[in-house]
């Protein structure tokens, strides 16, 4: 039978000595003298006895533990639970009626410890700055292009205007000379 997903279960009348390790859950109803380690959950049931270190992702204690408990995620000591030893857990629940003698340590992530809001804000501020600089840069570029276009257009306009003015002045001067010529001719005729 392939029972790979089966948990380890220590029956109520079992007294086990040695290291008990299983990647799956470990449920203890009896007594264990030695290390208990799991990558999942360890449940120490009521009337169960563990003398030795316990380490797992989540540990639930309803019986008696004489040793250190290290829970990666959560440690819960139920009203019937008794713990004599140091404990280390990220999330700790000790119910009313439970007994705990020892030191407790709650490891906190450094990232989480340094005010997550601030780090978030700082992050968002940086992002915002980046966005604004990007916006500013693009705006500046746009503005610069507009200026260049305006300058170009003004230069063109000026040239055209100058040319127009020159043409107009030329035409005017031609007209005046012609007019003057006519007048002169007229005068000459009159004199004759």
């Amino acid at each position: 039978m392939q029972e790979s997903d089966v948990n380890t279960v220590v029956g109520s009348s079992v007294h086990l000595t040695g290291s008990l390790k299983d990647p799956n859950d470990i449920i203890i109803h009896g007594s264990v003298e030695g290390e208990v380690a799991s990558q999942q959950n360890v449940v120490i049931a009521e009337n169960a006895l563990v003398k030795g270190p316990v380490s797992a992702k989540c540990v639930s204690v309803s019986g008696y533990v004489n040793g250190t408990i290290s829970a990666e995620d959560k440690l819960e000591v139920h009203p019937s639970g008794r713990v004599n030893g140091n404990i280390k857990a990220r999330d700790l629940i000790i119910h009313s009626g439970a007994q705990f003698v020892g030191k407790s340590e709650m490891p906190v992530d450094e990232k989480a410890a340094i005010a997550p809001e601030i780090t978030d804000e700082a992050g968002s501020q940086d992002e915002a700055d980046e966005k604004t600089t990007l916006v500013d840069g693009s705006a500046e570029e746009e503005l610069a292009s507009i200026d260049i276009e305006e300058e170009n257009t003004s230069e063109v306009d000026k040239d055209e205007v100058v040319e127009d003015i020159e043409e107009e002045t030329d035409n005017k001067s031609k007209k005046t000379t012609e007019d003057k010529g006519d007048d002169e001719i007229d005068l000459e005729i009159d004199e004759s």
Partner: protein
Amino acid sequence: MYYYVFEQSHSNQDKKVHDKVKFHLEEFNIAGEVNHATPARSAEELTDMGLRKGVSTIIAVGSDAHINRVVDTIKTVERSGMWRDIVFGVIPTDPNSSVLERLRLSGIEEACEALKYRRFTTIDLCYIEGVRYVFSTAEMHFSTPTQVKIRADRWEAEQSITDLIIFSDLTLSFYSMNRDEGKISKYLKWVFGSKDNDKDYSIFRAKTMQINSDQVLPLFIENEAVTKTPFVAYKLPRALKLIVKRDRFISDKEKE
């Protein structure tokens, strides 16, 4: 080509079942060389003959005990180093077979269908040192709680038990049931739904396990006493290529 090793027929009922199996083999077009165990030629001998012929796939047809015997022969011959990578298939004929349940097969027809597709997986086997390879289970049962010492990889336990089962992946489960319990006590537990029985049930897994006791206690494989305490059991990981049902490995996500 498939090499079939049928269990010896003990009754007309067995013959009918075997005929049914042969009908399904032809139906699924997987008929191969059929061999029936007889008092003159045991299942072990037939399996050994098939291996010497160079067949690559051996199918055991019969009870769990017969299946265990064929597996034991395959592994013993493989151990000699002459043949390797034999693919093994089963057609359990007993409707209450634990192998049938283990492979999630509904019956003979589905077992034959599984052989048609020849989808195999590699499974762990238990080896009782110097005795037998275990494909199903090895068991110990006592009428009264008996003291047993169990030594596994890194731990040892001493326990009074009434039932002990060793599975093929060396998962060990044992139970201590008080068979002399009074009727009133049993009735009260039944009425109030006591879960005390669950607490007496133990399950362990190991790679090596030694079982010892003060008295000499027998170990059974399919009701056949194969050895006695003390004995050592090993887990042989990925030791046998077994043909399984086609949808055995369909995950829940794929089903959805």
